[in-house]
């Protein structure tokens, strides 16, 4: 851990979500969600399809504007803490044929610090090297991103976030499409990050491996059902509540 660890004080609230409602065309996708999450956790977001997992992540990353309530990251709204947040997109939204190598991808993370026009200095280069090393990507640094396996691709994006020195990692279904071996490696990388004081928010749709992958969980179904340690948050009664009721998405006018 040479760079990017910030000032890790495990437990201090990094992310505060209060009374958050986000709507698409006046139809709310999540309503009145309030959450407080501290550093050093790897938190899974669970809920049925359409429960608003991606919406919650996008709102925290600043991509969607809240209709009510707000989001604070270290006391600042997402629009003012872009460098501290790293949003890892779903696999399908990436053009894997893009002419960029693993090193080039990780260098993009440094743009949050160099600015759009500043020089790319020795400190930036060593941050890139450190990130490549931490995620065991140094031997693959000159490969084009399509020439990696699914797990290596996920790690390359994590390395970019590390080089960016982000404190809050937002991952949208990173385990989708990974085989068991790659999942285990990715899970270990996530735990390493949480151990160094990062907060990871990970949307995930399988409940079976929840306890292995995450130390805490957020359960939503349009609104917040539960939040806390995995076993408590995903208790049978909470799950029945989240998966047994239908989500209100407004009425369709025809």
């Amino acid at each position: 851990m040479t760079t990017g660890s910030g000032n890790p004080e495990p437990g201090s609230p990094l992310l505060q979500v209060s009374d958050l409602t986000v709507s698409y065309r006046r139809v709310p996708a999540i309503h009145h969600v309030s959450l407080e999450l501290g550093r050093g956790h790897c938190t899974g977001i669970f809920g049925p399809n359409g429960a608003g997992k991606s919406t919650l992540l996008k709102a925290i990353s600043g991509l969607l504007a809240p209709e009510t309530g707000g989001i604070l990251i270290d006391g600042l709204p997402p629009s003012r803490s872009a460098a501290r947040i790293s949003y890892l997109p779903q696999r399908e939204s990436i053009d894997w044929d893009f002419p960029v190598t693993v090193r080039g991808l990780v260098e993009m993370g440094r743009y949050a610090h160099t600015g759009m026009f500043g020089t790319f200095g020795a400190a930036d280069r060593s941050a890139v090297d450190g990130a490549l090393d931490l995620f065991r990507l140094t031997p693959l640094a000159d490969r084009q991103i399509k020439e990696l396996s699914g797990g290596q691709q996920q790690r390359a994006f994590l390395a970019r976030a590390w080089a960016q020195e982000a404190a809050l990692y937002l991952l949208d279904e990173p385990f989708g499409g990974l085989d068991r071996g790659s999942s285990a490696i990715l899970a270990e990388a996530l735990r390493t990050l949480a151990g160094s004081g990062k907060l990871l928010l990970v949307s995930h749709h399988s409940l079976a491996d929840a306890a292995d992958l995450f130390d805490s969980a957020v359960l939503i179904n349009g609104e917040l059902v539960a939040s806390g340690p995995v076993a408590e948050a995903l208790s049978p009664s909470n799950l029945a509540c989240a998966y047994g009721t239908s989500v209100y998405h407004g009425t369709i006018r025809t």
Partner: protein
Amino acid sequence: MTLFDPILSPFGYAFMQRALLSCALIGFANGFLGTFVILRRQALLTDALSHSLLPGLALAAMLVGLSPAGLLLGGLLAALLVALGGQLLARNSRLKEETAVACLYIAAFAVGIVLIRFARVRIDLTHFLFGNILGVGDGDLWIAYASTCLTLTILVLCQRPLLLTLFDATVARASGIRVGWIEAALLALTVLGLVASLQAVGVLLSLGLIIMPAATAYLLTDSFPRMLWGGAILGMVSATGGLMISFHADIPSGPCIVMLMALFLTLAYLFSPRHGLLGKLFMGRHRHEESLSRWEGHQGHEHRFQDTDGHGNP
């Protein structure tokens, strides 16, 4: 007659000097721009824009005659109207943007053909459609020079936000980049590039100068900067080379330039070391052996953070 005569002889004529300089500038700038157009997957939108220049050119010719500045402005306005109109139509109806733009540009093209009949000066429609590089005047040269400088300056200065936007617009937006402005600037530069290349290759072939050199470079490299500069150099080489061939073979310059670009693209498609058809044939065997030896070497080793992707990659 020495060996270099075929290369040097065209430089003896003033009109050829101008044409070559104009081709070199436009070929370079448009080849550079092409990388952005290709990676945003806007080749077909660009084709639509090139056709929609026609009514603007015709209108400018009607109002101010054949002054280069007037033509530039007319073409720019017409193409931007089609691009923005397409977005407006797509947002307010169930038509998708490509359909909306296609309808608008073909309508604009039809209007342009009719308008040209009413121009004050007699205009040869074929000059607009196929270009007339040997008629390059001082004004055209200045426009080529200015648009090249402007395009290269903006694209080089804004390389980082452009790269982030091209790679993943969602993440770029989340990290505070004004993606809308970046996209609008790219669109404006594309239209500028199209207008600047009109004199060389005309409305119908102007797309080639933007798309084909960058597409060739895309087949040859995995590095973004190399694709940018490689596309620019290929664009310059094929534009000037095509012009030279057309001079000696006495065939129209526009088609000659585009055919030379097509030749380079074909060569890259076949012989690119990493992405070419023949390259892949040789690569397959090598990769397999490499993978086999690694698999044997790794058996029984600890797999912590090592890859178990099933292909034996390290």
